[in-house]
């Protein structure tokens, strides 16, 4: 029996359907709430978010993985309402987008504390609710190298992944070897890790993509739609066609079954302008047509949007990590 945690409770894997693996209802760096320049009327934010999720539904989308970490705008009760009103399954994550977006209280914590926190959010619930996380978010801080706290979070995530069976989703896969070493040391198979943002315009490395795929990891082409042709495109954008070709080269090498596509779009951004017009629906309205023009068939889309996400998100049998402490056994 396959199971995936959503904000409205566990669902069978078979019910995931078309799934966007790396999205945001709304992301903002912690502290942005203090700056009124980003405040929006809640009714307007709700409306635009509903519109985007409803259109996602109309495209056949069924499951939306919100990769917003602790303190970055993750809002479980809001996600629950959105899911009920749109019929879209929403999977929330535990963890942090990267160390530099972790709040001071969490920066000082040990690997053991962080492991317990992630395990608790996957097995007990998030923010006092009984909604459980369906994946664990980790990431690389600004600068392109895992810093000490990034490493602590990756290690804790690896242990929590083993204990709970939930997958890991990364923000960026630059400095991949460092993260792979941590996962290996902790005994976590790389098929439990989606190495995200391989298509980020600032950190392209096709040898790295190949390395991750060869080792059984998942390679995320999951900033799709951040095209540098668009006005106001953020620094991680790149030319639209370059991304398409990058992706085509990857699947031509035989790695279709290691590839993930997603848009990393905000339904309604919290602490930054977002990219005007961008949404998860770019996948259906722009990217898949681009692939079709290049001769990619529909069975590929099914693999990318249904079968691969199901493999990643399905909770695995818990495994005792190499470094399990007594405290964690009691969770």
């Amino acid at each position: 029996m396959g199971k995936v945690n959503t904000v409205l409770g566990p669902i069978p894997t078979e019910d995931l359907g078309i799934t966007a693996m790396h999205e945001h209802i709304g992301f903002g760096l912690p502290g942005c709430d203090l700056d009124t320049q980003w405040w929006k009327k809640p009714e307007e934010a709700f409306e635009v978010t509903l519109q985007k999720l409803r259109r996602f539904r109309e495209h056949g989308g069924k499951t939306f993985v919100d990769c917003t970490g602790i303190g970055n705008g993750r809002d479980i009760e809001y996600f629950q309402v959105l899911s009920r009103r749109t019929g879209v399954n929403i999977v929330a994550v535990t963890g942090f987008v990267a160390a530099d977006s972790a709040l001071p209280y969490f920066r000082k914590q040990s690997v053991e504390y962080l492991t317990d926190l992630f395990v608790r959010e996957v097995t007990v619930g998030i923010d006092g609710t009984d909604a459980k996380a369906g994946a664990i978010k980790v990431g690389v801080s600004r600068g392109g190298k895992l810093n000490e706290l990034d490493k602590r979070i990756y290690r804790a995530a690896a242990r929590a992944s083993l204990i709970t069976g939930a997958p890991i989703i990364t923000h960026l896969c630059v400095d991949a070897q460092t993260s792979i070493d941590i996962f290996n040391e902790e005994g976590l198979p790389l098929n439990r890790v989606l190495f995200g943002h391989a298509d980020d315009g600032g950190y392209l490395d096709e040898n790295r993509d190949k390395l991750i795929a060869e080792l059984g990891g998942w390679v995320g082409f999951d900033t799709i739609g951040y095209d540098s042709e668009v006005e106001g495109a953020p620094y991680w954008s790149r030319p639209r066609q370059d991304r398409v070709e990058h992706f085509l080269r990857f699947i031509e090498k035989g790695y279709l079954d290691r590839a993930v596509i997603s848009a990393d779009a905000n339904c309604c951004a919290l602490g930054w302008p977002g990219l005007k017009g961008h949404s998860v629906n770019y996948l259906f309205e722009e990217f898949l047509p681009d692939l079709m023009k290049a001769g990619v068939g529909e069975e590929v889309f099914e693999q990318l949007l249904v079968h691969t996400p199901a493999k990643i998100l399905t909770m695995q049998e818990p495994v005792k990590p190499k470094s399990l402490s007594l405290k964690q056994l009691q969770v």
Partner: protein
Amino acid sequence: MQDNVQEKGSSVVRTVLGPVPAQDLGVVLIHETLLSVFPGAEYAPEINMDKSEIFELLKRQLTEFRRLGGKTIVDASGMFHGRDVELYRTLSRTTGVHIIASTGLGPEPMLSGYFTTPQKNPPSPWSAEQFSGLFTKEVIEGIVIPRVERSSSAGLVTSIATRSGITKVETGLFRGSAQTALATGVPVSIQYGADATGDLEILLGEGVAENRIIIGGLDRIDAVRRKEAFAVAKRGAYVAIDHVGWSSSEGFVNDGERAKLVAELFADGLGERVLISSNAIGVAKGHETKELGYDYLLTKFVPMIQDAGVTREQIRLLLEENPARVLTIDASADQKVTGWNFDWDKLYQPVIY
């Protein structure tokens, strides 16, 4: 409802329930904290944020402070360390204690990603001007209740430097805080890093007047050894001996030496620039705190400074006149409050003990 409340030229202090005439402040503790939440602790499952419990604890302490003759307390912890202005408004109405809330950020390790690694390339930390923009709005337009509304105005701007020495980002914070003080007329109150007079010069460099500046932490052992309090007071800024009840294990001189320091400042004719407070925390979440209440200063330390030769009149200066003078909004500053009407608060009668 009045849209604009102009108070130019009037001698008032900004409390969480609106402007209060400076002469009504009474006995003031100028550097304390009501609710202190280590940033992020509110998201941790092991932290209990039961508001009724927090309120009850703070209410008891403020009521005791009021019973002992205290009238005003300054929550100096800034905008990102648990400040809960709605809770403070209710507390003020319930206890009759005037509460002055602060804007400001720091030290650098307490900042969040929005300020230190913004979503742009390169991710340069915020500048003094950006910080100043954020803080000034909390005085002019009101304190933010995140993503909901603005409430009453901040009555001062605060910051803290790292003890081993002020960092580059903290220099930006200090400069931004000074710019806000200059633009709005509220005082700027800082805890110095390693060099009190050096940090004072950073603030003065923005053009803010000496008598709008409070330098705190001057009862630290290193500051007392270097006689920093005398240098700061001679320069014309306010000296905050604001760790009453703290001692050497925490890096401060003990109360005996502290009392002596206060007496010496008076002996040198610098008494008009001296403030005393205890840096007590009413309720702490997510961090350890010292066992110290708002009652300690009045019940234990005041008798000690009397024994050290400080007169009753000088004590009045320390606890009433000096704080009222520095907290009074500078009448020459161009400031106004927009979008908030305090009048309905008059419907509430404070409970008097």
